[in-house]
């Protein structure tokens, strides 16, 4: 890497960190239990707005996985999410009225909290509709993975976003609080992903899946990015650049092998397409607070009127991580 380029990236990273400190000033503490965090705890960071219905299962899922502390930023929910979370013994909650878009889609807030609490911890940064799956997750807790990553001197772990959808029209089956969303949205696309390398940040740019297939069929270049690096052994000098798609310093983005081998990786099961989706899409379209001038939500809006079915004959029904491994969506790498 040329010195000038290194310097530029370094400047960018520092700018992101400073920006996080500035934007983070809008955070108001609702429940601060961060004193409970002890050395070696695995932390989960999450931004949300009006996700009450998803939270019970979300917390249960990640508690069982072995996350010890949850740090939530609530972007002015009015459905009781904030009250629900602040009553949980392992959650710390911050509240903000600031705009989602103007805080880099929540990343400024998350980065602010990470500067303060994440240093030296393994950190999982996910949305309330994302469920992390890693090799052997049915038999080994998350700390087995992080211990192994520590032993292998690996600092970041990739988990591609895998869009899950129901069979039949979206919203045909109502989602109850506490229910496993995969009972409804249990289908996914196994092999229609496109990959490109991003020269500047050295990360892979993955697109495809049902969202490209249905919503962006005629403008594939605008389909949402699916590459994510949600699990990172945090250092206060790190910063996510765009959502959790990529980080700086960019060495953390090298989660893929370039010599033909496979590194270990997981999957984020993205359960966006439940019955809550239409209402959410309407709201987000009105708020215009999403990435790329809410391009994604405009596309949803147009398509949703036709009550589309994401399911097709070749959709794959989710069974477990081994299935995803065999299909080549994730890999055990050399973890055995």
């Amino acid at each position, binding site marked *: 890497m040329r010195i000038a380029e290194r310097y530029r990236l370094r400047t960018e990273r520092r700018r992101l960190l400073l920006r996080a400190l500035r934007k983070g000033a809008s955070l108001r503490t609702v429940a601060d239990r961060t004193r409970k965090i002890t050395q070696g705890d695995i932390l989960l960071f999450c931004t949300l707005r009006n996700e009450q219905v998803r939270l019970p299962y979300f917390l249960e899922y990640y508690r069982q996985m072995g996350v010890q502390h949850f740090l939530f930023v609530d972007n002015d929910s009015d459905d009781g999410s904030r009250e629900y979370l602040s009553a949980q013994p392992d959650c710390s909650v911050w509240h903000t009225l600031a705009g989602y878009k103007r805080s880099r889609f929540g990343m400024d807030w998350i980065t602010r909290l990470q500067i303060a609490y994440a240093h030296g911890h393994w950190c999982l940064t996910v949305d309330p509709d994302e469920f992390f799956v890693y090799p*052997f997750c049915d*038999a*080994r*807790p998350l*700390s*087995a993975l992080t*211990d*192994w990553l520590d*032993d*292998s001197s690996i600092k970041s772990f*990739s*988990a*591609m976003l895998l869009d899950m959808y129901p069979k039949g029209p979206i919203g045909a089956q109502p989602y109850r609080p506490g229910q496993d969303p995969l009972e409804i949205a249990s289908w996914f*696309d*196994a*092999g*229609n*992903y*496109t*990959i*490109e*390398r991003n020269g500047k940040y050295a990360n*892979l740019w*993955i697109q495809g899946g*049902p969202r*490209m*297939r249905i919503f962006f*069929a*005629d*403008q*594939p*270049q605008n389909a949402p990015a699916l*590459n994510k690096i949600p699990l990172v052994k945090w250092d206060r000098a790190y910063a996510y650049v765009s959502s959790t798609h990529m980080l700086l310093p960019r060495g953390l983005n090298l*989660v*893929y*092998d*370039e*010599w*033909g*081998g*496979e*590194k*270990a*990786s997981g999957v984020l099961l993205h359960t966006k397409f439940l019955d809550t989706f239409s209402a959410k899409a309407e709201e987000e379209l009105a708020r215009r607070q999403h990435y790329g001038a809410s391009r994604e939500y405009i596309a949803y809006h147009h398509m949703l009127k036709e009550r589309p079915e994401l399911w*097709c*004959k*070749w*959709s*794959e029904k989710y069974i477990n991580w081994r299935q995803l491994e065999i*299909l*080549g*969506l*994730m*890999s*055990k*790498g*050399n*973890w*055995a």
Partner: protein
Amino acid sequence: MTIGIVMLVHTALDRAELVVRHWSAGGCPVVIHCDRKVPKREYEDFRNKLSDVPGVAFATRHRCEWGAWGIVAATQTACEMLLAEHADVQHIYLTSGSCLPLRPVQELIDYLAARPRTDFIESATTADVPWTVGGLDAERFTLRFPFSWKKNRRAFDAYVRLQRRIRFRRRIPFGLVPHMGSQWWCLSRRTLEKILNDPRRSVYDRYFRKVWIPDESYFQSLARIHSIQVESRSLTLSKFDFQGKPYIFYDDHLQLLRRSDCFVARKIWPKAERVYRAFLTDAEGAMNRTEPNPGKIDRIFSKAVERRTRGRPGLYMQSRYPNDGWENGLTGAKYSVFQGFTELFVEFELWLSRTTGCRVHGHIFGPGNAQFANEQFEINGALTASAAMRDYAPRDFLTNLNWNTRGERQCFQYSPRANQAVAWDMAKDTNAQISVISGAWAVPLFQTGGDFVEIRREAARLQKVENEFLATLRSSYAKARIKVWTMADFVENPAEPLQSVIDEIGSRSVRRLSEMPKMVDLTGFGEFLQNLKNQGMHPYLMGDFPAHPMASPVIEKPRKPYLIQK
């Protein structure tokens, strides 16, 4: 008579404590060396907890840096202590805090009692094994390594480079042949005493102090000098990955560990509750009096190394994205590409799928949407036929198609009208079988007729595109199995080339084609070409096609399918 345990610990002291109790209950004296890096309070706590266990002693603490001398020094101190204090010890077993005995201690004692003079120590000369990581095999014995590999990699590498440049070589002490092997050994009292009381020990120690990773070579080399009988294998089941760090066993490995029949396994994840419970408290454990047989575990771990270093050919995903030409195969399975066949034969796809049993697609790279077999819009993996998505990433489309349908050979049609972005990818792919009838693109133009100016322009364009494609196929980078016929040659005698193409696919053992595809009516095609020539557009890719129908018997009447039988 018993065995003595030397245990090196640095983390997970609570687990080490359990194991120490287990050894001690089996009647083995244990000398523990605890890394000096462990905080004093923790260490004192650990000592106190073990104060009620008989036969446990603590050796002077050394600072143990990975790859440095400290570990050997610690082992020496602990061994000296053990030999001095326990005269009844016949074998000394070196273990770590994360080692776990898998079989009852008494079985190990009996096993070693039956082999009183044998030293179980893996030791091989550097020239003969490819174990090492980082390219330092013989050099670890001839260079100096004052810098830590883990903490100060840059200085480590720079100093190695410097020594290489000035051709620095250390002298290996006389009589010593460097050997390497697993750090975890089991030596007989006699051999170990000889090693520790060697009059030249100070010479050896001074030498090994600057060798890289001496814990893998100090005892291994000296045992070769002093031992009567070296059994070059470790009794500790310990597998290493491609970077030289040990594999870790988890709860889900429990059954594998039980069936391995090994005496001791390393390394166990400290939080693997079920494994520890199973082997330390179950009285029966895995009680077969057999030789260790870690075959199955070996296979699992060597597969993991394979996956990490070579991966699954043909797969592109978030954690496998090989650079161009670094992959081991662009695709994972063989496939066939046909250019010019659908133009020349009626319902060629149907015939091909009948003859070979393969999945035969139409023109998947266009023009227009991909024509998948059976006119499906989506196929395996929910890959769609949409032209926009295909042309957005044509190479991904090709690799996805192949990956999604792995296990079933794919055939598809290609033409100068198709997206040419994958031409190089296919030409360079050893899995591709590309068969081209050059010039056949002119047949549809001839059939549709219409505005001749338009046809002429289109013919010129297609000829240029196909010519480029043929140049690609002829390039020295092309690795696919490629066959090109001019249309004139092919029409002359279609059976033979078709047979050779089918033979190469070789799915069904067809000796002879029993049925030929029906060729389109080419009456007037020669004149059509002549017309193009007259317009100043020379179609040269189809070979010498006779301009006048009477000149050639081939195109006088539609050819009948025929059959050759022996």
